[in-house]
């Protein structure tokens, strides 16, 4: 209880409250501009959070990302361009509502169900994370090894559309993680005689490159410019929302639950949660024929899902140090920088910091209602700011931010290489999320593999002997071999039919 009181004290300080408010405005702005994603917002925040104490640093990321995911709905409805990839699933639906003269319904449902979904995700986080941490305290290297493997497996086989390319992305990430001295033998790997490479590839400039610089390059290479679909002042965006809650309670709960679950799966975040929820909403709808004509039901369900995914993604990140999505991959880097090393001991040693994160999460959802409403009011002005002016300024921010982490130009070089790599990966259909997971978890994988190997004295069967490790291992192998098994079954069926 003392820890909860301390946590309230940590959050409700003028400095932290101002940071939260500024981050909220920043998140809304970034989310509302097409081409600037919530992950990019996080990556750009990191150089600034570098200079803050732990609680405001994490608070700024939590607030900015929650706001950005909602704000992505604004240009979806007005320009038919998702502000962030998490809104892409229902962009057409929202835009068609606007075309029908119901922009208020599109934007209002986006806002209200983002808040409700977000609160659902946070409540699950608050209940599940400490409970999981209790269990995780008993974990040995065997469980951690399989958890990391399961994380990789989810990112490649469940989150991605092309597992083969997902594996390549993951291997590239693991290769990046190999660089430096941090390996079981303490030998320099791929350091090329460079002193800075002995410490490994710096994580933050890498993330800034992969999530921000790549977006700037992508913007520069596309030509299309959208047109605004509304030319009148907005009415009351909250009108009829209570009616929607009463009409679609199941959709709200289903979207929020699926979003939280998908968020908690490593490698899959708000965007995948949103697509899956939209599909599910259409499948179980009583009026599936209305989908794609400007129908609000899909927005209710997937709007709730993408915000609940944010909270879900923090569960494995805080408890095991395994990121649930790209945002938490960056967050884990920040937590290490701030001495809040993720893992079950964080809940024992620093519970006040964890409770402070939970409080900020709830606060961000509550703040989203008034601030989101204000963002909608000024949306047309925000969207008039030409991206061709913003992008170069963002690039300058990336360059200086990457430099600021170690006050070294090496960070800028890493940023540029990572940005160009991510740009081409996206163009060639290779997902970036598994790469990030490989980079973040590569060292952890190697460390736990070798400790397990020494304990097992070279006998691989020991990896399956402990009950949880065995279950996780079996689950991992099951996901690996399921496609093969399905193919064999299909072939047998075809042969039988012939």
């Amino acid at each position, binding site marked *: 209880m003392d820890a909860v009181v301390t946590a309230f004290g940590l959050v409700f300080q003028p400095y932290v409250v101002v940071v939260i408010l500024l981050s909220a405005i920043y998140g809304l702005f970034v989310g509302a501009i097409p081409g600037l994603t919530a992950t990019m917002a996080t990556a750009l925040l990191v150089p600034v959070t570098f200079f803050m104490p732990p609680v405001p640093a994490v608070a700024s990321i939590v607030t900015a990302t929650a706001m950005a995911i909602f704000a992505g709905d604004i240009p979806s409805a007005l320009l038919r361009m998702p502000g962030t990839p998490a809104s892409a699933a229902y962009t057409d639906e929202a835009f068609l509502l606007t075309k029908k003269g119901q922009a208020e319904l599109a934007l209002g449902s986006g806002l209200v169900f983002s808040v409700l979904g977000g609160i659902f995700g946070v409540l699950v986080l608050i209940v599940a994370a400490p409970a999981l941490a209790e269990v995780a305290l008993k974990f040995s290297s065997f469980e951690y090894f399989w958890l990391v493997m399961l994380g990789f497996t989810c990112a490649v086989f469940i989150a991605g559309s092309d597992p083969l390319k997902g594996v390549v992305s993951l*291997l590239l990430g693991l290769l990046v993680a190999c660089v430096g001295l941090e390996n079981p033998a303490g030998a320099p790997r791929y350091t090329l005689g460079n002193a800075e490479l002995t410490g490994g590839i710096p994580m933050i400039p890498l993330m800034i490159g992969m999530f921000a610089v790549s977006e700037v390059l992508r913007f520069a290479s596309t030509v299309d410019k959208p047109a605004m679909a509304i030319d009148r002042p907005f009415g009351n965006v909250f009108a009829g929302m209570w009616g929607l809650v009463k009409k679609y309670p199941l959709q709200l709960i289903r979207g929020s639950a699926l979003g939280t679950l998908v968020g908690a799966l490593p490698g899959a975040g708000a965007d995948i949660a949103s697509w899956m929820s939209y599909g599910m909403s259409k499948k179980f709808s009583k009026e599936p024929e209305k989908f794609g004509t400007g129908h609000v039901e899909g927005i209710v369900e997937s709007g709730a899902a993408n915000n609940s995914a944010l909270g879900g993604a923090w569960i494995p990140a805080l408890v095991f140090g395994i990121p649930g999505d790209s945002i938490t991959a960056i967050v884990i880097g920040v937590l290490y920088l701030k001495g809040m090393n993720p893992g079950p001991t964080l809940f024992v040693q620093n519970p006040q910091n964890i409770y402070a994160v939970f409080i900020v999460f709830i606060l961000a959802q509550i703040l989203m209602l008034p601030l989101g409403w204000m963002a909608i009011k000024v949306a047309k002005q925000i969207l008039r700011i030409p991206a*061709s002016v913003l992008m*170069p300024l963002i690039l300058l921010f990336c360059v*200086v931010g990457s430099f600021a982490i170690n006050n070294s130009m090496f960070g*800028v070089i890493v940023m540029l290489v990572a940005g160009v790599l991510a740009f081409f990966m996206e163009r*060639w259909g290779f997902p970036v999320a598994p790469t990030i997971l490989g980079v973040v978890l590569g060292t952890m994988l190697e460390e736990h593999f070798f400790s397990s190997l020494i304990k097992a004295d070279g006998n691989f069967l020991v990896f399956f002997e402990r009950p949880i490790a065995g279950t996780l291992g079996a689950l991992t192998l099951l996901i690996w071999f399921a496609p093969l098994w399905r193919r064999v079954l299909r072939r047998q069926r075809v042969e039988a039919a012939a």
Partner: protein
Amino acid sequence: MQRTDRRVGIGLALLGLTVLWSARSFPSVPGQKLGAGFLPMIVGAGLLLCALALAARSLRAAAYAGAVDAAEARREHFGSSLVIIATVVVYILFAERVGFLFIAPVCLVAIFLALRVKLSHALLWAIGGTLIVHVAFYKLLRVPLPWGVLRPLY
């Protein structure tokens, strides 16, 4: 995409072979058969296998050619992207010598012009943006941005 996949496959195969070859030279953990070369070996072998699978798949898919590639159908031009990359390279090479306050606006103007922003607006945004970033990072966050030629005056 199939042709790209094949080319990427060749690149990945070469990378995989290089990683495999390099992994041989890493020492093992004392008392263990495996060591620092184990993970690179897995990565190298994995890349090689994936490259082969990618090439095989693209060759098979080429038989069903005709589908329009989404990435190729999008309207794109890479001139501006190249200017951006070149500008960052110039910044990396010359920022220490020339100084942030000089090189940042020059780089910004180059990118603004590549993105077809009017010259007058470009100059205004470049100078304004540089000053804001300088104040935020140098003054407030105390990041030692390079002074370059202005060092004697500062």
